[in-house]
């Protein structure tokens, strides 16, 4: 399960999608918009995506994690649109019987999302200027 949304991420609703009676551990990663990037002050971000491909690539990553580790559930959601400092840009959640697999799979999913999901961001600086954030080549 992987989705994009232009609304604030409802973490309670996403957590409810992955909790499982057999899972003794839930690991969550929340990516938050911070006020600096490479030493430069940031006032806000805007995310855009190739939405259909992004959902497909995200679903592939989640499926790979489910196949590689013994998980009960895994999911992720990425924000689109304008975000301010402190807003949540991405949420990844994994439920597993034991914590080790939940941590490892959660780390895998967010790392893969960064290079395989077609999302771009522009950052606003406090002086009003706007710049595209340098990314990494999109991988299959």
């Amino acid at each position: 399960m992987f989705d994009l949304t232009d609304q604030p991420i409802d973490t309670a609703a996403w957590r409810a999608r992955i909790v499982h009676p057999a899972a003794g551990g839930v690991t969550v990663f929340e990516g938050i918009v911070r006020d600096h990037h490479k030493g430069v002050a940031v006032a806000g971000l805007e995310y855009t995506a190739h939405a259909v491909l992004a959902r497909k690539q995200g679903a592939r990553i989640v499926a790979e994690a489910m196949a590689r580790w013994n998980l009960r559930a895994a999911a992720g959601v990425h924000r689109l649109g304008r975000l301010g400092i402190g807003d949540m840009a991405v949420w990844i959640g994994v439920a597993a019987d034991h914590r080790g697999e939940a941590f490892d799979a959660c780390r895998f999913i967010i790392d893969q999302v960064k290079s395989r999901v077609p999302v771009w961001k522009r950052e606003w600086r406090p002086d009003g200027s706007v710049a595209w954030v340098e990314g990494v080549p999109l991988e299959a």
Partner: protein
Amino acid sequence: MSFTVHWYGPLRDRRGCDQEMVESTAASPEALWRELAARHGLPGDRRALALAVAIGDDLAAWDAPLPAGAAVAFLPPVAGG
């Protein structure tokens, strides 16, 4: 043949639009990129921009066949998360 070309991320600014209809005889995304790059003053070697390409709803190889009417998306380096 006509294609719908979609520009993403910083490429949108360099091209000046999100999408456009293009008439071309290009047989592959590689050939279509070279043609459009020459037309719009972009680097002819897509490696210089570290691009990926999608045909329709999925990623494609640069030498993949281009069906008539295909939607082709040029995808610069990504910065999600």
